[in-house]
C-alpha cells in the first residue's frame, strides 16, 4: 500500500547550514495495516508523515502509494494533526462537509454524509457549533470526521491525541480502533506514547534520536478487537510495552 524507499530529508537552517532530519528510512506498510511510529521528540516523525502526505518534498528517496510516486497531497491520504487544524470560520457541519464539496459532491449528498459522520463520532447536536465552542476531544473528533468524509484509504495521524487529557485519550483510542475495525483503512500513526502504540498497532516502528533512522520494527501479536481493560492485565501486552520502552531508553544508536 505504502512503500517508503530510502527516504532522507535535510532542512536548510536559518544559519545557512543543512540539518538532517530523516536518514535512509525504508518501510513498507500493507493495506489495512495499522503502523505506529515512535521516537524521541525532534527525531523526524512529523516530517516523515508530511512527506508521505505529499505536503513536504523529500531530499532523497521516494514514497509510493499503490505503486504511484507521491508528488503532492491527494484525497487517498487523509491527515489528522495534533493541533486539529479545523477551519475556524466553518461550523462543525461545514468542516465535515468541506472535503466532500471539494470533491464535487452535490450539497445535499455532502450534508447527509457529513451528518452521518458527525453522528458516528458522537457529535450529534453539535452540527452548528463553531470549533472554538468545543473541547479538545470534540475538536479532534470533528477533525477525524472531516478527514474520513472524503474517503481516504490511508490515514496519516500525527500525535492526534497528544493534546488530550488521559481519560479523553483512551476513549478516543477505542473509538479510532472501532472505526478502523469497521473499514480497515491503512493507518500511519505517530505518537510518543509506547502504550498507545502497542495498544493500537499491528507494528511499531521505533526511530532513533535525530537524525531519525529506523531502529527497530516490532510486530504486535495481540488479538483483536482489543479492549484496554483486558490488555492492561495481559502479560504479552506488558512485555511489549516494557521491551519497547527499553528500546527507546537505549542510548546506543543503530549505525547505518
Amino acid at each position, binding site marked *: 500500500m505504502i512503500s517508503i524507499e530510502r527516504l532522507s530529508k535535510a532542512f536548510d537552517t536559518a544559519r545557512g547550514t543543512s540539518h538532517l532530519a530523516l536518514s535512509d528510512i525504508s518501510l513498507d506498510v500493507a493495506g489495512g495495516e495499522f503502523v505506529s511510529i515512535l521516537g524521541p521528540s525532534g527525531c523526524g516523525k512529523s516530517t516523515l508523515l*508530511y512527506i508521505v*502526505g505529499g*505536503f513536504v518534498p523529500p531530499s532523497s528517496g521516494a514514497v509510493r502509494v499503490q505503486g504511484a510516486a507521491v508528488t*503532492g*497531497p*491527494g*484525497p487517498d*491520504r*487523509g*491527515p489528522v*494533526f495534533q*493541533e486539529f*487544524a479545523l*477551519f*475556524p*470560520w*466553518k*461550523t462543525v457541519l461545514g468542516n465535515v462537509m*468541506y*472535503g466532500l464539496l*471539494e*470533491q464535487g459532491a452535490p450539497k445535499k449528498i455532502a450534508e447527509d454524509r457529513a451528518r452521518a459522520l458527525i453522528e458516528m463520532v458522537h457529535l450529534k447536536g453539535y452540527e452548528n457549533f*463553531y*470549533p*472554538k465552542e468545543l473541547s479538545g476531544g470534540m475538536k479532534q473528533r470533528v*477533525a477525524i470526521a*472531516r*478527514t474520513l*468524509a*472524503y474517503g*481516504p484509504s490511508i490515514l496519516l495521524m500525527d500525535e492526534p491525541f497528544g493534546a488530550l487529557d488521559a481519560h479523553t485519550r483512551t476513549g478516543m483510542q477505542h473509538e479510532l480502533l472501532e472505526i478502523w475495525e469497521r473499514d480497515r483503512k491503512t493507518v500511519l500513526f505517530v505518537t510518543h506514547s509506547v502504550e498507545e502504540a502497542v495498544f493500537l498497532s499491528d507494528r511499531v516502528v521505533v526511530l532513533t534520536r535525530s537524525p531519525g533512522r529506523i531502529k527497530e520494527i516490532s510486530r504486535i501479536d495481540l488479538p483483536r478487537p482489543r479492549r484496554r481493560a483486558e490488555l492492561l492485565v495481559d502479560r504479552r501486552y506488558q512485555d511489549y510495552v516494557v521491551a519497547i520502552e527499553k528500546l527507546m531508553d537505549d542510548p546506543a544508536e543503530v549505525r547505518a
Partner: protein
Amino acid sequence: MTFTRRASEIAIGILPIALVIALWHAIAASGIAPAVLLPPPGAVFARLIEQAGSRQFLDNAAVTLYRLFAGFSIAVVVGVTLGVAATGSKAVEGIVKPLVRVLAPLPKVALYPAMILMLGFDDASKIALVVADAVFPILLATYQGTSAVDNKLVWSARAAGCTPRRALFTVVLMAALPSVLTGCRIGLIISCIVVFLAEMITSTDGLGYLLVRAGRNFETVDMFVPLISISILGLTLNAAFNALRKWLLRGFAEES
C-alpha cells in the same frame, strides 16, 4: 447581563464625545473665543438639522460618501489581492515587497497635484488619493496575516482535493480574516480623513468643499456643519464595520 454590558459599553463610547461637546459649549459660553469664531454647539447642531433637509447639502454629502466608498472599496480589493498574492507567490512577493517599502512611507498628498493633472478635478483624483492612502495598511495587514497562517490548515484543504490557488483564497485568506479586517478598519478611517482632505485642497463639491467655502466666507457655523457631519459619518461607518466584523469573525477566538 449582556444587556447591561452593552449599555455600559455605549455609555463609555458616548462619554468622551459628550465631554468634548460640553467643553466646546463651556469655551463658547465663557467668551474666551468670540462667537463669530467659535459658535456654540447648539447653533451648529441646529444648523446641521436644518441642513440635513436641504437638497444641496445632501448632494454634497452624497458626493463625499461616493468618493469614500469608491476609494475604500478599490483599496480593499487591491490591498487584499496583492497581500494574498504576495503570500502565495515568491515572484509577486519579490515585486510587491520592495514596492511597498518605497511607497508606503511616502506622503501621498504629495502625489495629489500629479493625480489632479492626470485624472482631472473630478471624482477620479479624489478617489485615487483615498486609494493611495488606504491601500497600504490593508495590504500590509493582509500580507502579515496570510503569511502567518498555519500550514496545516492549507494541508488539510489540499488533502481534500483543493488546488493551491483555490486554497489561497478559500483557506489562507479566510484564516487570516481577523488580521485582514483590522487592516480594512484602519483603511476605512484613513479613507474618511483623506476624502475630506482631498476635497478641502481642491474641489467644487463634497463636504470638504463646503467647509472651505464657508471658511472663506467667514460663515463659522456653516464651517462646523461639514466637520460634525464627517465625524458622525466616521462614527457610523466604524460602528457598521465593527458589526460586520463581529459577524464575519463569529467562529474565531475572541479578541478585541
